[in-house]
């Protein structure tokens, strides 16, 4: 398994500002992902964070709004830019420990974001 930490655990932000969320893993992983869970909704994949290259975004999510960095195999950041109340969600990072798609994804504890 993997131990995943996220910072901050929660934040309250003003609209128009940006917040960067950090995800740290205790071991090197091949694939890292960022998900969003809006209130009362399911988890939705935002993007796959690729080490050393640009992230791969899912339909409905764009780099200008959710820039992602992944400088090495244990760390990634997600920035929520120019926030609005609709961005209020739980943001989660997850990791796959190996190449095989059927390996288990492990999730971090999440960052609860409230935008006023």
């Amino acid at each position, binding site marked *: 398994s993997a131990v995943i930490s996220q910072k901050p655990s929660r934040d309250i932000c003003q609209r128009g500002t940006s917040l960067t969320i950090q995800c740290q893993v205790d071991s090197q992983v091949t694939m890292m*992902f960022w998900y969003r869970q809006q209130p009362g909704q*399911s*988890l939705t994949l935002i993007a796959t964070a690729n080490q050393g290259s640009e992230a791969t975004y*899912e339909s409905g999510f764009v780099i200008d709004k959710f820039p992602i960095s992944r400088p090495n195999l244990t760390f990634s950041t997600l920035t929520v830019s120019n926030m609005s109340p609709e961005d209020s969600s739980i943001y989660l990072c997850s990791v796959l420990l190996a190449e095989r*798609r*059927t390996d288990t994804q492990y*999730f971090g*504890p*999440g960052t609860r974001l409230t935008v006023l």
Partner: protein
Amino acid sequence: DQQVKQNSPSLSVQEGRISILNCDYTNSMFDYFLWYKKYPAEGPTFLISISSIKDKNEDGRFTVFLNKSAKHLSLHIVPSQPGDSAVYFCAASGDGSGNTGKLIFGQGTTLQVKP
């Protein structure tokens, strides 16, 4: 387009009885299915998974059944315990494009196990 659906938002069972959580999917390309449990203020925790080449996988009190023809899977918890009270998500992966690791989640079912 909700590719993975959990039609029961909540379920309440008595301690010691069986809990059955259901999940339906529409995409026939899905070939790997997982169940996660989520407590408030925590990230989802992996419970059990099943590949499409199987129709049953068991791990202790947890069993997942897959019916590919019906595009339906279920999670059985026997016996149910109060500590099982949480939100349960089913997830699916596989789109024929290779190793994406992308998971599609259902909406979740809140299970309450009463003492």
